[in-house]
């Protein structure tokens, strides 16, 4: 069974979303259907105003669709109120934001622990899990550092660790490389592609950064609120590793 054949962890059917009021009301999404499969890094690409962020907000249970249905990790969102959606988010979804959204008054470790605390995971076990997540993203030596003392790339890695710590079924990233330089952008995408190898998890990244394409298993293209194309890149991850190795070699030369 290929990854694509595995049962999906996220399934959206005919999602439509209307935004605004009265004469200013617009249909931002016009019937989007997609599935996210475990073990895959999917990119959602499209021009500004195409509906990328609206779709991400709906898939992340932050916005509710005007029409259509959504199911995450086997649970339908139909009939869930704000608290029910919040519970689904903390159980099954990890977020990575363009501007990292770290808490400036908390250390890297505390930022990760906060996400666990929200899930009701506390005490020494939560500390171990937070540290493990930070080790996984290569920040073993920055546990006690505050965001202000971390580079942009390091801050985004803390955000990845925060999303990862709760072992979500779906990780959603909003322009994860937009605020990073080329090297850090590639490092973060490499990290996401490694995370996506976990057969229990799907990763979706909204981006318009072409540097991210080599890391993807699948690319969805959205325009005017509709998915207009899908490209599967079976060899994507290997290509990425080669790319990273080549960049490192160049840098050392």
């Amino acid at each position, binding site marked *: 069974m290929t990854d694509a054949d595995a049962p999906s962890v996220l399934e959206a059917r005919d999602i439509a979303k209307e935004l605004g009021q009265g004469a200013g009301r617009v249909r931002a999404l016009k019937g989007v259907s997609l599935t996210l499969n475990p073990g895959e890094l999917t990119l959602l690409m499209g021009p500004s105003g195409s509906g990328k*962020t609206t779709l*991400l*907000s709906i898939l*992340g249970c*932050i*916005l509710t669709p005007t029409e259509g249905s959504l199911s995450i990790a086997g649970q339908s969102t139909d009939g869930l109120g*704000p*608290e029910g959606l*919040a*519970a*689904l*988010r*903390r*159980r099954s*979804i990890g*977020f990575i*934001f*363009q*501007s990292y*959204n770290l*808490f*400036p*008054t*908390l250390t890297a470790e*505390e930022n990760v*622990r*906060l*996400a666990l*605390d*929200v*899930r009701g995971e*506390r005490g020494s076990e939560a500390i171990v899990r937070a540290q493990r997540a930070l080790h996984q993203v290569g920040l073993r030596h920055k546990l006690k550092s505050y965001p202000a003392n971390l580079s942009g790339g390091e801050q985004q890695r803390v955000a990845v660790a*925060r999303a990862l710590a709760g072992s979500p079924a779906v990780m959603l990233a*909003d322009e994860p490389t937009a605020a990073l330089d080329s090297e850090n952008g590639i490092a973060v995408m490499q990290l996401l592609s490694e995370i996506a190898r976990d057969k229990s998890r799907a990763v979706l990244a909204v981006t318009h950064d072409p540097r991210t394409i080599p890391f993807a298993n699948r690319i969805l293209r959205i325009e005017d609120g509709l998915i207009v194309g899908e490209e599967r890149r079976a060899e994507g991850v290997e290509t990425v590793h080669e790319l990273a190795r080549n960049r490192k070699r160049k840098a050392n030369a």
Partner: protein
Amino acid sequence: MTVTLAFRNLFHDRVRLAVTLIGILFSIVLVAVQLGLYLGARTMIISMIDRSDGDLWIMAYGTKNFEEAQPISTRERFTALATPGVLSASPLVTSFTDWRKPGGGTTLVVVVGTDYEDGALAPWNVVAGDVTGLGARDAVMVDKTYLAELGLNGVGDTAQIGGSRVRVTGLTEGIRSFTVTPFVFTTLNRARSLLNMPADNLTYVLVKLQPGYEAEAVRDALRAKLPDSEVLTKAEFRTRSLNHWLFATGAGVALIGGAVLGLVVGTVIVAQTLYSSTKDHLNEFATLRALGSSSGYIHRVILAQAGLSALLGYALGMSIALTIVYLSHNTALPIMMTPGLAGLLLALTFGMCAISAVSAISKVMRIDPAMVFNR
């Protein structure tokens, strides 16, 4: 983590923290002083009644408080003694009069005359001399708080009341009058003499009951026998005095009003700073919401922030309030602080901060978690 996050949010902006704490501090000090004055006034108003050993008080009709009473006839006392259930009926004389200071000038005093052997009412908190010393010629006792006002230096000094000489043989501490008029303790007969009161007159009869008799029942019996006088239980006389001074004169209402104002000002200041702090951290709260936190979790962060502010503000406010209480200890209008009042202030501080948190919580509840994608 909610307390950690609240603590860090609070200390992240030291200027705002200082404004919050100053707001709480002023509020606490204002409320503590107002309620402390109220308590002090209350204690002064009822101290004579509380310290008396009488179960029932017989007095002239319409007497509103201890100091301002008209004379009644000694017959009332004998009638009381002849009533079933009455163990003793002690006479007490009290009235305002002028005190001539030894160095010249006069001041108003309240002479309280009773025979301490009766045990009905005797000076307490005696810090110099002895109650038995009142038996000596011209002897009086005054409170040390009023020494300067009475033109005295201490025990042994003499002054004049009316045309008679009096000599201070003892001092008390903390027996003060709500009217700020010094009490002068002496014997019953000397009081009559100093006040030019006929020997068949007195101001109060303090009735002590035999064991097993209900105060209300004996009061009713006495009322039937003494149609020209008023008979009140100790509790009724306390209530009447308090109602007169604190509510009929408006003094208590002013003190309580000041305390309420302090609470309102404190609540507004804390609400404002907490609201603006929450506004500054709105993106973080939106992130928390996006991470899946329940609204209860966010409420706890904001309430913890309010609670920590309350604790810090209370500690600072109480230290200043206690200093003021200490400094007022020997003045004519002392501010009181009791464990009960301290507990009430703590509860009020937490209540004030919790109410202040409401605006911040309602702001957070209106945030759109989707804003995390728009930064």
